[in-house]
């Protein structure tokens, strides 16, 4: 693994879009009988990761492949996740899908797997620099898309605020950076606050209430995930500013969809966890079959607002694939 340059999933040149897999590498060969794939997720307390797991499972079921999907007990249990990953390796899987808590915490497991000749795919979020295979979206792009919406819809600019996730977490940092850079470059906007709420709906609510009170003319919030965004929505509502203040989240969980439909949440950046899960499983199976794939397989994401929501159905994967491919 020494020959690999440290992976930056956002800028790695050796990449392919998910939609090009079939076209470039042909249809997936039927996996051998008894193929087993293990998944290690960040946590199951977040719908995003549960849905990703469902993606693994639906795709694996279709191919009659066994899956084990394990997760740490919470989003901060880094050593626990490592233990789980190592324990899985010792059980002899044909491929592993890791969604690490941090950039580094699963490295020993990755190395162990490499030593055992088991392919490992780093799926989304934190990026293991030595990962040979990565499937996921561009974290920074989440923030960029929301910033773009503000630029498009409020050409005259205005005050905006960011509700950040846990300090020091990769995804939180990237999403915030994407938003902040894009909107600052535009020059018309003023980021009046960018404060952490540790992925907590309650803290997000409190922070938003405080910010709104200090800046009654705020035109929008960007929250690093949907849970926090829904907390912000409540704060905006209780301040009676639904008409004036837009609220965006990230992840595209079902509650966020419902809130967008209801007109509470202005939008969310969906990175399609179910589809991402399917793609990741497909990549794993292709690797087991011995195919040489590019290092990064990029998965889609889209800004979901009331206007676009109907085009992204979340249940019919084939339809979704079609919509996204068409873009």
């Amino acid at each position, binding site marked *: 693994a020494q020959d690999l340059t440290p992976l930056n999933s956002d800028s790695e040149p050796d990449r392919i879009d998910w939609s090009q897999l079939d076209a470039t590498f042909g249809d997936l060969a039927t996996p051998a009988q008894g193929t087993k794939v293990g998944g290690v997720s960040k946590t199951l307390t977040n719908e995003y990761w549960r849905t990703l797991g469902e993606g693994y499972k639906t795709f694996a079921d279709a191919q009659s492949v066994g899956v084990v999907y394990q997760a740490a007990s919470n989003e901060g249990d880094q050593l626990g996740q490592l233990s789980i990953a190592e324990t899985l390796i010792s059980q002899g899987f044909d491929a592993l899908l890791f969604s690490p808590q941090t950039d580094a915490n699963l490295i020993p497991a990755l190395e162990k797997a490499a030593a055992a000749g088991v392919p490992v795919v780093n799926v989304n979020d934190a990026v293991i620099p030595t990962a040979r295979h990565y499937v996921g979206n561009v974290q920074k792009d989440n923030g960029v898309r929301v910033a773009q919406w503000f630029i498009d819809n409020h050409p005259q600019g205005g005050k905006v605020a960011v509700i950040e996730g846990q300090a020091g977490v990769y995804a939180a940092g990237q999403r915030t950076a994407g938003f902040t850079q894009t909107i600052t470059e535009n020059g018309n906007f003023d980021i009046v606050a960018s*404060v952490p709420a540790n992925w907590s709906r*309650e803290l997000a609510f409190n922070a938003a209430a405080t910010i709104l009170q200090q800046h009654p003319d705020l035109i929008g919030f960007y929250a690093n995930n949907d849970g926090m965004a*829904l907390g912000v929505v409540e704060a905006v509502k209780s301040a009676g500013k639904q008409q004036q203040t837009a609220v965006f989240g990230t992840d595209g969980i079902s509650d966020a969809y419902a809130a967008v439909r209801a007109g509470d949440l202005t939008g969310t950046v969906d990175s399609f966890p179910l589809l991402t899960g399917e793609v990741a499983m497909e990549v794993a199976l292709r690797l087991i079959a011995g195919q040489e794939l590019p290092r990064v397989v990029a998965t889609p994401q889209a800004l979901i607002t009331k206007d676009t929501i109907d085009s992204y159905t979340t249940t019919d994967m084939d339809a979704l694939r079609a919509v996204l491919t068409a873009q």
Partner: protein
Amino acid sequence: MTKALTNIPLFSRVRFRDAGTLVGLILIAIVFSALTPSFFTVQNIINILQQSSISACIAIGMTLVIISGGIDLSVGPVAALSATLGAAMMVAGVPVPLAVLGAIATGVACGFVNGALITWGGLQPFIVTLGGLSLYRALALIYTGGTPIFGLPTEFRALSNGTVLGLPGPVIVVALLALIAWIVLTKTPLGEYLMAVGGNPEAARVAGVPVTLTKLSAYMISGGLAAIASLILIGRLGAAEPTMGNLWELDAIAASAIGGASLMGGRGSIVGTLIGCVILGALRNGLTLLNVQAFYQLLATGIIIIVAMLIDRATSGK
């Protein structure tokens, strides 16, 4: 002067003790007021009170438990479990008062389990409630499958979001609860028992204090208050999440300690704890108003907790 004060015993003594905590709060308020004009406005003060009300609700229960010589690390998960059960009932159409009672009963039941393991099981409170921290969280997650419960009835949410005389509902509810807790602690036998059980369990037992019952009550009250806090919160947020209440225990313990409770038991004050909650709330609020960057917020929180304790110690003597 001081002498005269301390001569009017207990009552003034308690007041005097709480004065140290108050000084800490005032200093923080002065600093933030100097740094940002938005801090010291009626609106923002109400805001701080509102934001502190949930943690105050938890911290009141925690203070009683700490006074009894224990600790309750499981408040967050207990809150989550009560909230999700309560919310599920409401969504299923159970009348709001019944669902509220159900949620509180859940919290009290969890407290009872904690207390039973500690008293009859003879286990250490820290470890029992550490186990509870996993256990109740797991139950909440399993029950909900990990997804938040939405769609709470508006009449329920009105309680959390309404105001009375300009004060938010939660502030009034928690103020009432605090008053009751204060009365219990300072005016009823249970209060004496709590102090006795925490201050000198052997003496309490010898004197015929119902030690087991007293400890059980403390954990049950803590569980019940956790449930009430969770109800206030879901009323405000409109959703009951199984992951809610993360790290609430640390906030509550910090508030109790800042307010003068001794983690060795036997000492603590409801008024002090309330001030402690407001200190923590004001801190968070002020840092947000100042738009302090995440890392530095963490830094400031750590420093201010320690400095508040140092001020408190310096002013309250000894």
